[in-house]
């Protein structure tokens, strides 16, 4: 026993906090791959819960006497839950916006304005050019 907690219970406590930290880093990395700003920002939204966990550990370190840490943990947990809901709402808002934009551009695909027509033609030409410039080569190995 170290203080109030046995060693396995301490390991469980620190394990949870470490896993949370790993999850924060992984969320950021997924955001980098996906190019998604909210996944990259997720560690920030996960911070209140992380601090809440640290407060729980601090509370146990004082042998459950410093009620300040217990109170702080409760407030941080509420902040964390609100941060999570906010994060999901922001991400969902972005996703639905992108979807609406996509369907809009799809609906107006018959080109109406002259400028847009030129732009579209230029884009089409460019994609053809790039196909010509970099033909798909089969690499023979062995």
């Amino acid at each position, binding site marked *: 026993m170290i203080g109030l907690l046995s060693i396995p219970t301490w390991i469980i406590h620190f394990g*949870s906090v470490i896993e949370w930290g790993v*999850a924060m880093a992984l969320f950021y990395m997924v955001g980098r791959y996906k190019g998604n700003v909210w996944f990259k920002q997720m560690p920030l939204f996960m911070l209140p819960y992380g601090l809440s966990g640290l407060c729980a550990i601090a509370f146990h370190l004082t042998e459950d006497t410093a009620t300040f840490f217990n109170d702080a*943990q409760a407030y941080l947990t509420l902040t964390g839950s609100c941060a999570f809901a906010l994060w999901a709402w922001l991400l969902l808002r972005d996703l639905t916006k992108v979807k609406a934009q996509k369907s809009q551009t799809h609906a107006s695909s018959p080109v109406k304005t002259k400028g847009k027509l030129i732009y579209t033609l230029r884009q089409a030409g460019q994609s053809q050019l790039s196909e010509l410039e970099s033909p798909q080569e089969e690499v023979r190995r062995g």
Partner: protein
Amino acid sequence: MADTIMSFSIFPYLLFLYLVWRIWKLDPSLINKTTFLGFSAMLGFVFVTACAGITAVKIMGASTLGHVDWLHGLAESGLTITNGLIAYGLKKQLDSYKPQPVEDDD
């Protein structure tokens, strides 16, 4: 007071789960199933910890859950499992983006 605030934090969390479920319906590639399972299982952890806390204080007469080590350890291990699921799901998701190694014929 702290207990009341703690219990109220379940409502924004339920909203979070509902919104994440809608995100998953919109684009399943964005959130790994294991990660979502971990976030959902967090509700189970909250329930188990709340029950363990009540058992320790009201039935066993301890001042806090921290004073009943085995119950404390059992309840907290739930969080280790859910956090592990969240991290594991993210790891799987990240691995799926990396190019798969090509098997050689020779």
